[in-house]
């Protein structure tokens, strides 16, 4: 976490510090929400639709979303497609490599719940939320580009509701080893 994350815990103790943190919340949440860099990886057919969303007709760049190949620099991970048990381990590692704050969107039925592979399937994980925390679920097989964008707008709403003080108190500085 950046330096800014620690500040509100101290400011809130000062009388009148609430105003400062509220405006800081606003600035930081706006910047987080309008600059979600997503990770360049896809797992199955949903990835094709994700590429279509990034291309000219639907253009993710309008929301300030560009892809980064490195998980360190990305804020958002689209789990786009069928997650097999074998792949789930890799997805988990990628999620751990992402720097906080990080968000996950489960795109399509397979990532939400196993999708068409929910019954009678030995290889597919029944929902990526068994492995990593998911913020927004988008149904569809695969979802239209508009659905994906609506999911992103939904996530932006969620980000804009966040409070720095929650971050500081609820989520302590993760003392994790960076793999």
């Amino acid at each position, binding site marked *: 976490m950046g330096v800014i994350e620690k500040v509100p815990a101290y400011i809130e103790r000062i009388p009148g510090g609430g105003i400062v943190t509220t405006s800081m919340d606003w600035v930081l949440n706006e910047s987080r929400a309008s600059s979600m860099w997503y990770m360049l990886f896809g797992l199955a057919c949903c990835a094709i639709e994700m590429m279509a969303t990034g291309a*000219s*007709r*639907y*253009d993710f760049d*309008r929301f300030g979303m560009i892809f980064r190949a490195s998980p360190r620099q990305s804020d958002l991970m689209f789990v786009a497609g069928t997650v097999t048990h074998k792949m789930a381990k890799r997805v988990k590692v990628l999620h751990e490599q992402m720097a906080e704050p990080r968000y996950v969107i489960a795109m399509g*039925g397979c990532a*939400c*719940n*196993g*999708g*068409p592979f*929910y*019954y009678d399937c030995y290889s597919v994980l029944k*929902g990526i*939320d068994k492995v990593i925390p*998911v*913020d*927004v*679920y*988008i*149904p*569809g*097989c695969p*979802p*239209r*580009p*508009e*659905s994906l*964008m*609506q*999911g992103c*707008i*939904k996530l932006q709403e*969620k980000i804009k509701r966040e409070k720095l003080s929650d971050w500081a108190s609820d989520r302590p500085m993760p003392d994790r080893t960076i793999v």
Partner: protein
Amino acid sequence: MSAIDTLKAIFSGAWNLLVGLKTTGKYLPTRAVTLQYPDERWTMPERSRGVVVLLSDPETGELNCNACLVCMKQCPVSAITITQGKNEKGERYPITYTIDNTICCFCGICEEVCNFDAVKLTGKYEFAVFDKADLIYDKNKLQELGRDVKYERKRKPRPTPAPKPAAKPGDATEPKIETEIKPDSSAEEKA
């Protein structure tokens, strides 16, 4: 390769670089094709395969579904769950009708096999949620979604007992369903 050929290759290479610049430069001032989604939308085509809804009778406002379970049996991924019930008039109706949208693969088979204009795939697509449990749609939600959907009646009047033509392999399900319907008089009353 002689010196002249080398020179020619160099110049044609440099020229081709300029041609490349011209091609991209041509697109720079032109109008972008981007659809600005939250402000602009496509009108979805009539037969697009979006979220499944349950259709209601436009006059009475009741569900067209009479719980014949065909869609549930035909669903290749078992996304549909129906429990059958009978009302006081002896008509079948669905007590519960659940579609799990995380499992549904939007193949459209339920719409195809339905003989009562009860299920339809619509052009609706905005259904992202924060909680996975919200993606399991029950009867009321599906009915609400289907309120504003316009549809064309495809249900034929009750077939006259004429000599049947030789059944094709593709039609195998249809006669079977009809025999199921026949004893049920309520469906005809609705129509």
